[in-house]
């Protein structure tokens, strides 16, 4: 091990020196590209070069699941075993791969040629089962494992309108194809206050990242603060199981997001922007870099405002806005306590606006059309177009663009979903044995279950909230009646236990206890008292956790406990 040559590392990380600690994740990524993993000597060199304490560098490596401090294969296959892929045979795929190479998940071949791992959702749910093979997406893997797509994943774009997705579905849209940033140019003829007013009450734009926060309010907050530097951050961490909309938007139409960032930067007076993209989307990075270069050449980006891409390294929690800032700052992705809020004390303690990719993609639309025309789509309190990530038991899984206000029934009809469950009224008549709808997981792992009862609910913020269903990141994951809900829950439990950052006790401990009980539920080995244990754990995480991860880690489980209480009691199945 003593032979490690540090010269290539020195060259590779030289350019990060001015970034100081903030250069840590980029430097570790660069180091891993060279050595395949991060041996002690390499970590120490990175630490010394950037002036970060050794223990802290180790803490960072340990936090992110895509950084390795022990040898791994030159090729790494990450097989997604979360819900959507599981429905399409992910476990069999993983078993098959492991069998072929004589490995167990998480192991590396003796000659260090290959590592096989289980992965949380890779954001390829509509082309399941899927894996990430180094930097390539391997999708639509056939049941005999012989045919598959490899490389940049395809986009499957459907729905009833094409506003946000007008350029999606045919590969990457270049700047020449996208055309000039007309909305940005128009925004520059308006005052920043006017731009904010358009995004605020006029358009009624609400954030699409999951928290449903009014965008204009956020912008107004950051705009009114005087500061030498302000930031606009694009949240492209997209790690909520079942979500893949931002992947499609960024791959197929990167300029829409960049134009959105330019408009936001002008509105709040930001001089610098970041796009933070999850480590499991490596194939998007060159597409983004290229689009940013095009925007620079065209003069949209430059001295006044420029954008840097930062790549995560396997941590769902880094989608939480303050954990994301910590990650850009080169730290473990621990969420911060709020207040203070990002608009006053965000990235590097400066006023920051952070928006989801889809939120930003709405801006060119709002500014170019004007808020009045934008409001022609959707409902009064949920205006505009909305993207839904439909996966699971439907004929046409994919990204669906619809106006807010279509019903779940209409959406499932477009996607070719299973027929509704048999009610006493419909009983028997529709003879054919097609599996019927059992449940829809709404909003992702942090969401809740809907059933056939909910089919006529309008997909709007207000209607869903009233029905106790979070819109979340637009996940609509469909399960027919042949599927096992305990299996779905078991995977949810594993996901949250794997992704809890460990900062606060309710979630650090609760996600583990929840996982253990859900494992028992899945194995049909429920113990006396598990129902109340699961209720107490779920309730405590929801009420007492520090951040949104813990506060929603039991959301789907608690909704399942309401719908199917027998699953959690002894002797009821």
């Amino acid at each position, binding site marked *: 091990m003593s032979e490690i040559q540090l010269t290539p590392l020195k060259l590779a990380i030289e350019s990060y020196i001015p970034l100081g600690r903030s250069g840590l994740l980029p430097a570790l990524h660069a180091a891993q590209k060279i050595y395949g993993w991060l041996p002690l000597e390499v970590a120490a060199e990175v630490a010394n070069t950037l002036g970060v304490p050794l223990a802290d560098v180790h803490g960072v490596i340990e936090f992110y699941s895509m950084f390795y401090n022990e040898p791994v294969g030159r090729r790494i296959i990450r097989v997604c075993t979360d819900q959507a892929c599981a429905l399409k045979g992910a476990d069999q795929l993983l078993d098959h791969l492991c069998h072929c190479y004589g490995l167990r998940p998480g192991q590396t071949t003796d000659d260090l040629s290959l590592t096989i791992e289980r992965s949380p959702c890779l954001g390829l749910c509509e082309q399941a089962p899927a894996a990430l093979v180094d930097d390539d997406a391997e999708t639509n893997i056939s049941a005999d494992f012989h045919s598959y797509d490899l490389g940049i994943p395809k986009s499957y774009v459907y729905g009833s309108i094409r506003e946000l997705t007008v350029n999606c579905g045919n590969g990457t849209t270049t700047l020449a194809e996208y055309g000039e940033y007309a909305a940005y140019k128009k925004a520059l003829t308006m005052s920043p206050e006017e731009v904010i007013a358009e995004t605020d009450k006029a358009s009624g734009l609400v954030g699409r990242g999951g928290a449903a926060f009014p965008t204009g309010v956020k912008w107004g907050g950051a705009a009114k603060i005087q500061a030498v530097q302000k930031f606009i951050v694009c949240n492209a961490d997209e790690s909520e199981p079942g979500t893949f909309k931002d992947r499609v938007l960024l791959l197929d139409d990167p300029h829409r997001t960049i134009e959105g960032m330019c408009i936001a930067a002008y509105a709040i007076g930001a001089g610098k922007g970041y796009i933070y993209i999850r480590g499991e989307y490596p194939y998007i990075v060159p597409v983004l870099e290229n689009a940013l270069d095009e925007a620079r050449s065209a003069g949209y980006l430059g001295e006044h405002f420029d954008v840097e891409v930062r790549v995560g390294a396997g941590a769902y929690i880094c989608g939480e806005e303050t954990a994301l800032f910590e990650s850009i700052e080169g730290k473990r992705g621990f969420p911060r306590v709020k207040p203070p809020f990002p608009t006053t004390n965000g990235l590097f303690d400066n006023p920051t606006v952070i928006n989801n990719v889809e939120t930003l993609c709405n801006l060119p639309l709002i500014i170019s059309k004007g808020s009045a025309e934008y409001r022609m789509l959707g409902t009064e309190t949920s205006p505009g177009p909305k993207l839904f990530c439909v996966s699971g038991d439907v004929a046409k899984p994919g990204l669906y663009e619809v106006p807010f206000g279509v019903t779940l029934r209409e959406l499932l009809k477009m996607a070719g979903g299973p027929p509704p469950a048999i009610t006493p009224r419909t009983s028997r008549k529709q003879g054919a044995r097609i599996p019927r709808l059992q449940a829809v997981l709404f909003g992702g792992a942090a969401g809740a279950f809907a059933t056939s009862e909910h089919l006529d609910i309008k997909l709007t913020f207000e209607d869903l909230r009233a029905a106790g269903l979070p819109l979340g990141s637009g996940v609509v994951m469909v399960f027919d009646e042949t599927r096992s809900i305990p299996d779905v829950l078991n995977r949810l439990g594993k996901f949250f236990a794997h992704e809890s950052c460990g900062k606060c006790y309710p979630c650090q401990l609760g996600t583990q206890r929840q996982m253990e009980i859900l494992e028992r539920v899945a194995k049909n080995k429920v113990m006396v008292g598990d129902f109340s244990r699961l209720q107490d754990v779920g309730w405590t995480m929801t009420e*007492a956790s520090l951040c949104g991860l813990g506060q929603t880690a039991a959301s789907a489980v608690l909704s399942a406990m309401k719908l199917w209480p027998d699953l959690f009691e002894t002797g009821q199945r």
Partner: protein
Amino acid sequence: MAITFFMDGKEIKTEEGKTLIEVARENGINIPSVCVHEATKANALCRICVVEVEGQRVLQPACIVKAANNMKVQTRSGKVLRARRTILEMLASTIDLSDAPEIQNMMAEYGASFNRFPDAKRRESEIQDDNPMYIRDYSKCLLCWRCVQVCADDAQYTFAINFSGRGFETQVGTFFDRAIPETSCVLCGQCVAVCPTGALKPKREFLLEQGLSPQDIGVLNSGRKKRK
């Protein structure tokens, strides 16, 4: 600025800028806590201090939330008790609390059972006895972060320790699990002083507990025991 607010129905006048836990203590109301310490910045980790604040969606940590004019706070509502009891029960099923009498008392006070979670995975690790000054027994560590914080910018600026793993698997650790003498540790002992659970313990105390006499201790030297 002077403010007035209500805690458990009692009208309290105080100065703006104080946390709920501070004001409570000044007024003879006990809000329990596990992670905070006067020497370290509060991070609202343990959530044992949560209280109900009218108008807030979820429970609020009293160690960082500041008292504000007209705020209405319940420090012992049913919700508060349920959260505290459950957190304590989850802790007890995870770590060895035998050296943490304060938490044992809290368990009794909140009716928390040591066996609420049967078959639960515990955080266990071997005692690390690798330096002449203190031992580290992370089976007792409740991740209050105090040691990491005093070793870093809350006091010593030594940065010898940080974390490994994440979530339930988090553990306090050194660079690539190096033994303490191979780190930047200066054996100042501040971490040992702030540890609430006996996870960090002076070597001498540890050896006395093991039944060694003070004379024996004088001649012993440190050997390294590696974590599994």
